[in-house]
């Protein structure tokens, strides 16, 4: 079902369409520690995995070839958990893993900037949504990140970023043009609230979320990092209803959906 923006402004129609949507036709970049594509939960859903690594000319993006072990793909497990949450809530969305922290890297803001630049300018076919469950408090990265976030906005690419859970000003979550997410101890994976006037405009479930663990099995994860993919999944569903939605329109629809509950989505897709 495709609905135009005006039709989606009818809250009842929007909730019904969201419940039926799956994220089909939408590609989501997960900029994080990598994704363990060998995990049974994530088998076959990641179109491409790249890593930002250092070479003599600076930071370079290289494809991670097939046959890598779980710990080589995501040595930390953070990105795998985020990817698992997105897949659970938007099961038909395709993922692209962009590793900016993890093996062969040291997790600097420079790598993050390079990875995001790759997503915006070099990723083919392009993604429509970017999950940024990470950020930096380094002021020197604020300028380059703002430039990229604005560029994404004008391109129509939806960025969803985790706010800092230590109360710090972190980038890119602090920029108003993207969707910044805070963590709440909601039980319902579809429940999110709007927070007027806060840098983290939305609060979603991010406390002890069951998600895949690198190497197999599952674990409980807590932090704004794990609230962020809940909203990313909702955005993927919205874009599968209408792929022409702009960041401005997506924000308007998320505002309309504030206070959303599981009744809007099929129980079979609800996270545990």
């Amino acid at each position, binding site marked *: 079902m495709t609905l135009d923006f005006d039709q989606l402004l009818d809250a009842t129609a929007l909730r019904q369409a969201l419940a039926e949507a799956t994220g089909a036709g939408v590609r989501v970049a997960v900029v994080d520690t990598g994704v363990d594509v060998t995990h049974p939960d994530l088998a076959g859903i990641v179109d491409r995995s790249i890593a930002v690594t250092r070479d003599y000319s600076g930071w370079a993006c290289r494809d991670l070839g097939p046959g890598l072990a779980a710990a080589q793909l995501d040595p930390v497990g953070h990105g795998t958990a985020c990817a698992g949450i997105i897949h659970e809530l938007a099961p038909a969305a395709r993922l692209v893993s962009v590793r900016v922290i993890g093996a062969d890297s040291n997790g600097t803001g420079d790598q993050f900037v390079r990875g995001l630049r790759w997503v915006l300018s070099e990723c083919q076919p392009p993604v429509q949504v970017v999950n940024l469950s990470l950020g930096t408090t380094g002021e020197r990265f604020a300028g380059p990140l703002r430039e990229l976030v604005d560029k994404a906005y004008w391109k129509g690419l939806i960025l969803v970023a985790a706010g800092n859970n230590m109360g710090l000003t972190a980038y890119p979550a602090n920029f108003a043009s993207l969707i910044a997410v805070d963590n709440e101890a909601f039980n319902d994976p579809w429940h999110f609230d709007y927070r007027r006037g806060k840098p983290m405009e939305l609060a979603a479930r991010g406390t002890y979320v*069951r998600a895949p663990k690198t190497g197999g099995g599952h674990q409980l994860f807590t932090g704004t990092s794990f609230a962020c993919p809940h909203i990313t999944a909702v955005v993927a569903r919205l874009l599968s209803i209408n792929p022409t939605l702009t960041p401005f329109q997506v924000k308007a629809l998320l505002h309309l959906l504030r206070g959303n509950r599981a009744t809007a989505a099929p129980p079979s897709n609800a996270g545990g």
Partner: protein
Amino acid sequence: MTDKNGPGDWQQALRDLPAALEASTESSLRLLKDVVALGVQAVGSAEGSVLVPDLDGVHLRFLVAYSPVADKLANVRVPIQGSIAGYVYCTSQMTATGDLAEARAEGKGYSEEVARQAGTVTRTYLALPVLVGDRPRGVTTYINRPGGPPFAPFTPEEMQRARVFAGVVGVLLRHLGQQRGLAAAAMHDLREALGELAPAGAEGGERAPITWLRVLQQLEGLSEDEQGRCVELLELVGRWWQQDRQS
């Protein structure tokens, strides 16, 4: 340090001064250990620790640990690139994980490797960045619960308490760093002042490190932007040097 036992004793007392100066930082380290122990109690964990960047720049090491295996942890290095603690250090984001009651996953990550090395099993884990200003200087962790598993996950209230302790640890880490820097600089000056009384081998080779130490102290006083430009400059020189070596 009294002169009551004759002229020879004052010389030995002066020679002992550098060691006494060095030992003065131990009290700050003990204070940090006490705060970690208090944090463990307040957060309701079984163990706790403070990790700081190792000299190699790619690992974290345990500066203090409140744990039955604290001695073993002193020798464990945690890779910044491949661990939750490293992730927390890089991103300044608090992260908590907990095992599911339904099944103990077959772990292959670094936490399992640390567990193997130290002889513990991490099931409930809370890691917070230790910040000085907005700059990460380390990671503080809380592990498991008193008693046996299964362990309840840390509650939001306990996490809030852990945030308070992370702030306190940040203050103490900064203090410890400043104290160590001052002690090292004073030790150098003291050895110069002692002249021929200084223990053999105390001279030569000390000047270069102390110069670097003072440069680092000056860098610490710069703004973050200024420090960032220094990092960029060093990276540029490093890349140029690597290219020059290759060509």
